[in-house]
């Protein structure tokens, strides 16, 4: 106990002494002339704690003043002709002072640089890891050789691995700006090159402009980094392609099965997607007004509801429009187009023509980085979600008796009917399932796209292209086609621009269908020419 008290007393004493020291070095700024200021700044920056950084910051901004009455250095904020003074050491408010009572500590450009480096150096000693990281990154960008001693000191003390690597990078960039020997510089270049990051390129290219072994090493490092970056950008393109592909997959997967089973093209398919998205919107609105705590669950709540809404609408369409037109695919196409117009306009009249906002729950917002790739959470979830839908549908088709019947109807409708499968019933159920899937696709798409009455329209042609490309009634075909089209699209985009890329893909499909009129994965079997 006694020991504890003793330690406590020592602590108090030490901190009082430190405060006194601090006060003195802060006040020193007000005493010296311009040419002595650099020394005073460095002395201050060497002091521990957060005060030096604050004072230096104010000095750099021109907010640091000397009170004429007692020579106290204060931070002053102008407020209507007078100044509000604050004591930087204690943080205490010192009331107002007239303009004539204080005088500003003037600095010049050379000093500003000193201040920046010194402020960086002093923040490097901050107890807060985030602040140290920020300071290290600031030094890294400023490439100031003057910061080297502070960096060395900070490196020796640093324990946080993230901050430590940032410090090492900062040190390397500072070294390159210093007059260090070539060996040291080459080592620094190696440190920088190891990151493979785009950020080190400007630093290296400055070095590469010079001559000598360091410049050579820098040039080599640059070309290496550029190669790695090219790989990363390819990986990024693949990722974008996969994410576009999964959007296409979600939109097209239902289309593919009904087309296969019923030989029917449903132009209102996109509107089922839209209904799903609007269901999500309504669910979120209800949650926002009544149960704000549930917001993170909104998508999970919306999923079954969207399935239900879209499936019911699907059954309705099947009953009213599709069934009576059975066997006349072109008429069905026209009638379902009419349905899509009606649904769109109805939604427009109920919810208005403008985009509705559907929020991302906390687990689907933000992004993370892998190497030089940035991946947003909502895209990641969307890809996983579409794969889950795919897997679910695959199991449904291949592991259930309903799936067996469905496949039988797809392959040969009359034969299936002859062996006792209720083909109309299978058709209706397929339609409901398919519409429901389009609905939950809408939940997913509401996370990345605008929820507007035209939402479905924008996907319909793309989904048809996927179906035509992949072949009907074959899930794997749809998956491969969606991913291929997505990736091809994203790879063409940098060269050709987004619009031209899309046109090229369309032209490609038009040509492709010449060779394989039944798509990539055509069902094998004998067919009447239909």
């Amino acid at each position, binding site marked *: 106990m006694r020991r504890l008290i003793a330690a406590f007393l020592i602590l108090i004493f030490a901190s009082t002494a430190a405060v006194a020291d601090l006060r003195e070095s802060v006040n020193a700024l007000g005493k010296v002339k311009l040419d002595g200021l650099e020394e005073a700044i460095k002395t201050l920056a060497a002091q521990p704690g957060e005060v030096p950084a604050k004072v230096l910051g104010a000095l750099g901004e021109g907010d640091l003043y000397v009170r004429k009455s007692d020579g106290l250095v204060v931070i002053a904020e102008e407020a209507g002709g007078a100044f509000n003074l604050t004591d930087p050491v204690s943080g205490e408010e010192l009331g107002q002072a007239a303009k004539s009572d204080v005088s500003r500590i003037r600095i010049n450009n050379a000093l500003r640089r000193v201040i920046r480096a010194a402020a960086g150096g002093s923040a490097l000693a901050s107890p807060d890891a985030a602040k140290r990281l920020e300071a290290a990154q600031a030094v890294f960008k400023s490439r100031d050789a003057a910061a080297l001693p502070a960096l060395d000191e900070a490196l020796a003390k640093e324990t946080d691995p993230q901050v430590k690597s940032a410090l090492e990078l900062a040190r390397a960039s500072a070294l390159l700006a210093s007059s260090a020997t070539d060996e040291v510089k080459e080592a620094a270049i190696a440190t920088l090159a190891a990151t493979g990051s785009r950020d080190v390129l400007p630093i290296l290219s400055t070095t590469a402009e010079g001559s000598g072994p360091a410049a050579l090493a820098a040039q080599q490092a640059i070309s290496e980094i550029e190669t790695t970056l090219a790989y990363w950008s390819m990986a990024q393109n693949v990722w974008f392609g996969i994410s576009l592909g999964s959007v296409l997959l979600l939109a097209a997967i239902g289309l593919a099965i009904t087309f296969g089973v019923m030989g029917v093209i449903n132009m209102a398919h996109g509107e089922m997607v839209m209904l799903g998205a609007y269901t999500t919107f309504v669910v979120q609105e209800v949650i926002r007004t009544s149960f704000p705590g549930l917001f993170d669950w909104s998508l999970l709540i919306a999923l079954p509801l969207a399935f239900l809404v879209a499936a019911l609408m699907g059954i309705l369409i099947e009953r009213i429009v599709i069934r009576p037109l059975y066997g006349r695919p072109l008429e069905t196409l026209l009638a379902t187009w009419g349905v899509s117009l009606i649904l769109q306009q109805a939604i427009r*009249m109920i919810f208005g023509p403008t985009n509705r906002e559907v929020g991302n729950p906390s687990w689907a917002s933000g992004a993370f980085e892998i190497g030089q790739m940035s991946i947003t959470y909502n895209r990641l979830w969307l890809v996983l979600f579409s794969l889950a839908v795919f897997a679910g549908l695959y199991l449904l088709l291949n592991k259930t008796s309903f799936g067996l019947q469905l496949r039988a109807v797809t392959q040969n409708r009359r034969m299936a009917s002859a062996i006792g499968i209720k083909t109309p019933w299978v058709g209706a159920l397929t339609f409901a399932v398919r519409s429901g899937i389009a609905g939950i696709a809408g939940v997913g798409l509401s996370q990345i796209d605008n929820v507007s009455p035209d939402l479905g329209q924008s996907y319909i042609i793309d989904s048809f292209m996927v179906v035509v490309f992949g072949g009907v009634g074959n899930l794997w075909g749809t998956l491969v086609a969606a991913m291929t089209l997505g990736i091809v699209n994203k790879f063409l985009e940098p060269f050709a621009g987004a619009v031209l890329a899309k046109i090229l893909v369309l032209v490609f499909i*038009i040509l492709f269908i010449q060779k394989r009129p039944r798509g990539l994965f055509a069902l094998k079997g004998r067919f009447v020419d239909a």
Partner: protein
Amino acid sequence: MRRLTYIAAALIAAIALLVPVLNLWVPPDSPFHVPDYLVPLLGKYLCFAILALALDLAWGYCGILSLGHGAFFALGGYAMGMYLMRQIGTRGVYAHPVLPDFMVFLNWKELPWYWYGFDMFWFAAIMVMLVPGLLAFVFGWFAFRSRVTGVYLSIITQALTYALLLAFFRNDMGFGGNNGLTDFKDILGFNIQAQSTRAVLFAVTALILAGFLLMLQYVVMSRLGKVMVAVRDAESRTRFIGYRVEHVKLFAFTLSAVMAGIAGALYVPQVGIINPGEFSPANSIEIVIWTAVGGRGTLVGPIIGALAVNSGKSYFTAAFPDMWLLVLGALFVCVTLFLPKGIVGTLAEWMAKRPAKKTHVPATAPATEAAQ
């Protein structure tokens, strides 16, 4: 049925004379006067009628449901628009002697090669037919040869017009991008805004429609026309008999596209603008509904359908703007469900059932593709 076509052609030719006369020479206070605004509006409807007639040749008689006929229409329109743009000359905002305004605005230095020749009317007139015709020929050649039929073909034609829509929206295509071509001044030296020019354009449109009607009557009554109907109703069977189905289809499709291109070329000077919106897939599907409402597989039907649906559109978009799409959607559903033969087809069937008078049984009524 043939008689009906002749009556319709005569009626349209009469209108071609009557409307300009009633507009230009009948005093405005007379009850028979046709107001100025109505002339280009009616002219627009007649252009749509030509377009519907063109689609009817492909769909109603040959079974090719094209969801991309708007593309041919728009291409013809663009060819005419390019001629009209070149006629502006130095009267544009930037007063450049050669370059249209939008090119000056985009800082282009010289005319792109594909704009050469469009200062001459005859060249533009050929292009109006050649460009849509060639596109249809090449597209049809590939599609029909590999036996892309039915809904596949419909979807691919839709993709075609969608691709063109995207392409024409691009500024660096050199077709005015988003805004398209507009602000025309004169055609063949006549002021395009003048009432007399508009009346003449109307008359030309109506006469061309009447001419097409007679031409198609000849085509569908010919041996070739009979084979077309055979292809529509039983494609495989026709092929097994020994006809080159793809050639027949290619003929119908290409002729239809050329007609659509001419319709577009007549449309642009009367409306005063052509923009990429004309390529939108929704427009092309609307053409299908005009034809379906009037009655596909009849020649008069599509004309009646185009006039009826478009008048309805003009009325509804003015009176109940929110309702039009609902009405259009309901029209799609109801016509396909309850009136598959359209107005004229149903009437003809009804007439044929009456025992009293012997009339030609129409070679219409596209058999529902029940064979599948």
